[in-house]
């Protein structure tokens, strides 16, 4: 929710921003370190993220029957095992589908609704996406760094542009702080950051133009993911999804955009690799 300026806490915006920046830096260091290492470390990181997200997801509806929540927890953990072990994508995908189906079928019997079943998919699919995109290769590292650059630039630039320019609200009924100017600025920032990173990596020509278009799509989807999460919280009467990260709220608040963008990028690569042969070792599908 980085483009929710002063409105959220009008009393001491300056120190709030400092806290946000500090904890963002700490998080960035941790995330980048895990990303550089790749392999099992990054897969563990992805799985941990899924658990934290699901924790906050299930906490949004504390009144749901306990047995359904426990079952969903068990199913999620079981589905993350093949992910951490680095098994092929399709195995992990089937494990997640089965876990979600199990929680869903159980809910039909106990009238718990499909909340936890959706939560499993919402938490685990993006974990699969980032782990599969990263893989073990240099290529995977660059792709994931590009994804971070796009999503983080979207958040950061949208926050500052929205604060500087203001103007009409993007979705006043869902997230009152967001403005159209911030959304546009974030999208432009995302293209610049994504393209900039790839230029540093030596990419040029048509590939770079495509990377700009892709960054635009990823940025839009990441903002939609952000709004989607805000709408969920609003519907459940919460402002932050949790309080784990100082100045940021919960983990879900921090990764809502990444979740959506990672899924899109992964889907694009996965579909493409099904359609034709893919450059050595980018994705194991």
């Amino acid at each position, binding site marked *: 929710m980085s483009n929710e300026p002063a409105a959220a806490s009008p009393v001491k915006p300056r120190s709030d921003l400092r806290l946000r920046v500090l904890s963002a830096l700490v998080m960035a260091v941790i995330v980048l370190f895990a990303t550089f290492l790749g392999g099992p470390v990054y897969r563990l990181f992805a799985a941990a993220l899924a658990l934290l997200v699901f924790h906050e997801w299930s906490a949004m509806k504390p009144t749901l029957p306990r047995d359904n929540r426990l079952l969903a927890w068990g199913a999620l953990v079981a589905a993350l095992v093949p992910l951490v072990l680095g098994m092929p994508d399709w195995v992990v995908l089937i494990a997640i589908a089965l876990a979600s189906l199990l929680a869903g079928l159980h809910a039909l019997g106990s009238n718990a609704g499909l909340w936890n079943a959706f939560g499993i998919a919402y938490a685990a699919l993006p974990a699969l996406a980032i782990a599969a995109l990263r893989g073990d290769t240099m290529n995977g590292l660059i792709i994931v760094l590009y994804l971070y650059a796009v999503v983080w630039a979207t958040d950061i630039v949208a926050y500052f542009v929205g604060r500087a320019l203001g103007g009409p609200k993007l979705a006043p009924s869902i997230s009152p702080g967001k403005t159209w100017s911030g959304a546009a600025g974030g999208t432009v920032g995302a293209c610049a950051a994504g393209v900039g990173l790839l230029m540093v*990596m030596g990419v040029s020509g*048509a*590939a770079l133009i*495509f990377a700009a278009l892709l960054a635009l799509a990823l940025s839009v*989807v990441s903002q*939609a993911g952000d709004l989607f999460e805000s709408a969920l919280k609003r519907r459940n009467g919460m402002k932050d999804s949790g309080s784990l990260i100082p100045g940021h709220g919960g983990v879900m608040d921090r990764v809502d955009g990444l979740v959506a963008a990672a899924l899109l990028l992964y889907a694009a690569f996965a579909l493409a690799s099904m359609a034709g042969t*893919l450059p050595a070792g980018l994705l194991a599908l």
Partner: protein
Amino acid sequence: MAEITASLLWLMNFMLGTILPFLFVLTIVVFVHEMGHYLVGRWCGIGVRAFSIGFGPELFGFNDRKGTRWKLSAIPLGGYVKFAGDMSVTSRPDAADDNLSDEERKVAFHTQPVWKRAATVFAGPLFNFLLTIAVFTVMFSMFGKFISEPMVAEVRPDSPAAEAGIQPGDRFFAVEGTRVETFSDVQRLVSGRAGDPLRITLVRDGEEVEVTATPEIVEQKDALGNTIKIGVIGVVNNEELGQFRRVEFGPVDALKEGVAETGFIMLRTGQFMKRLVMGREDRCQLGGPVKIADMAGKAATLGFEWLVQLVALLSVGIGILNLLPIPPLDGGHLMFYGLEAVMRRPVSEQVMEQFYRVGMLVVLAFMGFVFWNDLFGC
């Protein structure tokens, strides 16, 4: 870093070469279908809350002055129109909102007379058929049509035609009682009927001769490079006897041809589905989204008119599929409205609820089946 550039170019190739044509084709078909619901719904005075291309979380959207939210949503494999008073996007009458103001109640979907609801629901598939007719009409008036006389120039040895006693020089007159004018009429009537004994009427030396031939399956490549299985009887036409030629059409005749062609495809699709259920068709001939995407990519490389033709074919397919009498589909709603009109009262909510549940499972199972077919089955 040459490798990352190669990866990006490869992804670009796929996204622009396959995904973009696929989304183009699908979006047009979905848009026209939903536009049918929307326009006829509006003409009937029903309020529209949302018009969405795609399912799931919204990506873009705006509100018009009449309070309709127009939006593009994240999962591009469909769309919906949400009418006033609908709780879900499938217009389930049992799930209608009961806490409506009088104002809302007047324009709510479920408070309308049954004929208005039926017209609104039927308009989706109808617009799909109209789209196909429009595309074919334009195609026929632009490019005309290649035809040939229904002559037998050669009979393949040991073919069903040879066994039936069809001879070179024969002229086809009718297949199963349907008059044929051109060679492609014969192909149309034969190709979907592998394994069925067909009554074929020929003209030989000015006399009518009746024979029975049973088409056999052969594998062929279609224009998009797909392997298709069709029924043939093993006769070949040639230039001299067939007098291959192109006929051109004025606007009215092009429209007639467009309607006829659309009708043939609908009959053919219905026949295929009937035979599929009876286990007489190869399930691999049934393509899901992945196969359609693949075809869209191939059509796009052949040229824009091929892509438009794919739009026409997909539009008929989606129209027919939606008319199946399974509840969450348009045909399922129409079935209940038909019962309501006959019984003069709505079907009970409990019965409806059960049908919706079972129907939903059937639709999901069918989707799973075509996906499986696409990915692993064939």
